[in-house]
């Protein structure tokens, strides 16, 4: 099921302890810059996969293993949370 970053606001709060749907990320593959909410999200992929809406490159993968969140951010060149939130 293809969704968007709004759907993982709670999960991202678990990982980053702050509001992340308005965080701005830069795709390491194509350089597109977008807010996390605008990215393509697949739940249960298995794990949660966040892809670039421009090139569909993988930006983030988050899997839960034994109650631990394993976070792969290699697809992001940059990720910056809003400081005024």
């Amino acid at each position, binding site marked *: *099921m*293809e*969704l*968007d*970053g*709004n*759907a993982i*606001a*709670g999960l991202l*709060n*678990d990982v980053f*302890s*702050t*509001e992340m*749907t*308005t965080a701005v990320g830069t795709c390491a593959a194509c350089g597109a810059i977008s*807010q*996390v*909410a*605008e990215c393509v999200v697949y*739940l*249960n992929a298995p794990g949660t996969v966040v892809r670039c809406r421009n090139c569909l490159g993988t930006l983030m993968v988050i899997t839960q293993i034994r109650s631990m969140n394993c976070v792969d951010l290699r697809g992001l060149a940059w990720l910056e949370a*809003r400081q*005024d*939130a």
Partner: protein
Amino acid sequence: MAGTALRRRLTWQVATVAAVAEETASVRTIALDLPDWPGHLAGQHLDVRLTAEDGYRAERSYSIASAPGEAPAITVERLDDGEVSPYLTEELRRGDEIEVRGPIGGYFVWESANDSSPLLLVAGGSGIVPLRSILRHRDCSGSSLPARLLYSARSIADVIYRAELDDQGDGVTVIYTLTREQPPGWTGHSGRVDDALLAEVAWPARRQPLAFACGPTPFVETVAAGLVRLGYPPAAVKTERFGATGGH
């Protein structure tokens, strides 16, 4: 307000069901009593967590249906093959307890009742829920900002909040399109939202409107692309997609 609603580590808390109201044959609104609720913004979500007797847990995210300042409520559509929604729409009773955390999300929110941009709200099915919060917020804050809601539903019986939407005050226009079934004598729109319908009902781009589109993924893609073709800057089109698995 934004500080408390956004920048905060979320913790699960127990909510008591204060009331349930049937909206359509498959949709109900659940009002929650949450003593420690920090308040929410129009368009935010909350997560619901159910735990089975064997310890199995399922979590879902639901848009908050009530306006900021009102007690939190969610509106849930029953998905026949769902893990969570059948319980919420059929089993849950007033006085029951469920685990929730929130409010969540900072992107699909509308805060500025003093804004000068007219609002364009486009809903597909239960995508109306966060947009209803926005309309209630506009109303509660005494805003006279012009707003148009384009709401696509399968049939008139599937329109959620119909009485409330038909009773909007000055400045709000509600336009329905019914995709599957139209009642006898229906004079509204029929069929899916397309570029022609958007061109007819959307504010002209020169008025610098702010658009919120919420619904199933293909619906939101159509609306967002159509509005951009009408000259809306992509940043002026906020989108939220949901689907049957782990969606709203």
